[in-house]
């Protein structure tokens, strides 16, 4: 993909120009997912006449804190944050909110003074994912879940959504099943949640080991963008493509190709491009003195960019849209 942009600020002009608002977009880590968001940010930068900056903390929460502090220093007009640990970052967000407009994206910090949240409800997205599973496996069976790390808020909510949906539980996003627990209920047997700490070789090894451990596994669910491609690799090598159902999250090329080829039943996609674009639009607007209402943010401060279920029937259409957003077509 291409992520270079002509809207980068010039050296030394620390974004306090009167007419052009400066907007920073802080992610919760480094991932291709965020590169898609970055192109949304850049596009919106041109569209709404803002100087934009994208920061991806590579070293976790301490790094994110440092970046936000430095943005305050820079006098950035608006900051969009995907908080890694919202419960404990309220103060930091409030501190930033004293100096500039702050919103959250991808993951919310409802207790803070952020002005709004742009993203989806991860618990609901998890439930949508659960629907895909139930649909792919009407007879149930053994299911394994793969995810980068489980202490990230969005990951936990997604996983809980998946579990609650297939077990037919009521909607309650505060539930939490311990990660190592095997859950056997009715026709379903959830054999465990495998984490890899963003180590891809480990992610693939997890998929392999899950197959070793459970020869009668019928379904693999990957909750972070890079998990499904790794699962597909492992399946391909084990000659089990299509035999074990794959349910995915996000829009990695391999995942979409897997849907086209019939190796992946379906995926839940967010819209990172829109996360980026909308964040810049809203922050630029707030800087120029517009109100939330004027910017079409609902009363509850939640700009929902809903997740979508992608199956074989709508994958081509979706893929084309994605490529267009990334400027690849």
């Amino acid at each position, binding site marked *: 993909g291409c992520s270079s942009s002509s809207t*980068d*600020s010039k050296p*030394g002009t620390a974004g306090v120009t009167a007419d052009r608002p400066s907007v920073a977009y802080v992610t919760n880590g480094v991932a291709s997912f965020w590169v898609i968001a970055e192109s949304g940010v850049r596009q919106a930068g041109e569209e709404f006449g803002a100087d934009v900056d994208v920061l991806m903390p590579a070293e976790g*929460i301490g790094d994110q804190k*440092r970046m936000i502090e430095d943005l305050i220093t*820079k006098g950035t007009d608006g900051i969009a944050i995907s908080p890694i*640990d919202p419960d404990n970052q309220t103060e930091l967000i409030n501190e930033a909110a004293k100096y500039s407009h702050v919103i959250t994206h991808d993951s919310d910090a409802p207790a803070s003074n952020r002005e709004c949240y742009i993203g989806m409800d991860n618990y609901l997205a998890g439930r949508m994912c659960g629907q895909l599973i139930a649909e792919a496996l009407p007879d149930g069976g053994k299911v394994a879940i793969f995810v980068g790390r489980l202490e990230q808020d969005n990951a936990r909510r997604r996983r809980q959504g998946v579990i609650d949906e297939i077990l037919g539980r009521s909607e309650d996003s505060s539930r939490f099943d311990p*990660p190592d627990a095997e859950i056997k209920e009715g026709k379903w047997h959830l054999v465990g949640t495998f984490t890899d700490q963003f180590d891809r070789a480990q992610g693939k090894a997890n998929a392999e080991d899950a197959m070793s451990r459970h020869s009668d596994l019928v379904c693999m669910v990957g909750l972070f963008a890079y998990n499904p491609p790794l699962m597909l690799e492992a399946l391909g090598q084990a000659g089990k493509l299509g035999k074990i159902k794959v349910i995915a999250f996000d829009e990695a090329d391999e995942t979409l190709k897997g849907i086209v080829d019939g190796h992946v039943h379906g995926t839940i996609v967010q819209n990172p491009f829109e996360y980026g674009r909308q964040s810049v639009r809203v922050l630029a607007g707030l800087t120029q003195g517009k109100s939330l209402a004027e910017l079409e943010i609902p009363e509850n401060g939640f700009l929902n960019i809903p997740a979508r279920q992608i199956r074989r029937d709508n994958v081509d259409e979706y893929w084309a849209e994605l490529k267009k957003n990334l400027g690849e077509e």
Partner: protein
Amino acid sequence: MKKILGILGLLIFICVMTALMSDRFLTQYNIENLLRRSALFGILSIGAAFVIITAGIDLSIGSMVCLVGCLLPWMLVDQGFSVPVTLAIVAALSIGIGILHGTLITKLKLQPFVVTLCGLLFYRGLTRGIVQDQTQGFKGDYQSLRWLSQGQISLPGTDFGIPMPCVILLVIAVLAILLLNFTVYGRYMLALGRNETATRLSGINTDRITVLAYVICAGLSGLGGMLFVLDVGSAQPVDFGNFYELYAIAGAVLGGCSLRGGEGTIIGVVIGAAVMQVLKNTITLVDWIPTNIEYAVIGAVILGGVVADEAVKRYAAKRAAAGRAT
């Protein structure tokens, strides 16, 4: 003094360059941030320096930060321990680990690299097991304790405040300088870092001194871990403190410690730690430096620093030789 001139020059150079490229660099807020961050890493680097001076190495610093950083809020918030009890446990734990490292190295004659590499793996795994991979945070509580990291001591007559970690670093640095240069223990550390056998044959219990160095390092890592989590507010066992040992060691090396042992000044080490924090700040503040090459910049600067240092040393040696010969 001469030894720290190089690194001091580098720090000043980076600061001047950044100030020229960003008018926000010298704002009070930024300076306070930089002071706080440098202080936090400086504490770790001082610990690393003591071990390096005795010709050892401690790779477990980052995992110690993780262990203490996660257990502190876990004990307070999750387990409901009182503050004094928690602090006592954390201190005992850190010191105990230092003693363990030192003992394995001196009594079982294991290599420091190996022992502390195992520590690096073990303490993080242990932490993850204990807190069950859950993020540990203060949830807005414990403000008075967090003052240790977030508080400031305002300078009378100005509205400038010295961040608390800076004050703590100052105290530690002064103690470290006294220990290293004015007590027999420091002298023994320098001596044994250069020649362990000769030091032992001079009647010095080198084992005990080695253990002392590891205790200081583990203790300061623990203190650092505590201050880091008090500053950040929460810690995830999976990545909290990741790679901090490398930053700590790099700071010590930049500051003039030789990994061959027997060399190093505390002030140099503190400056070395600051260089890296200022660099990171520079990269975020200056727009045209892409953030994703951050590591590349830090790596290049450290390498440049040691190369320049080496070049200056050689030049000086040449001049001295020429000067005296004529």
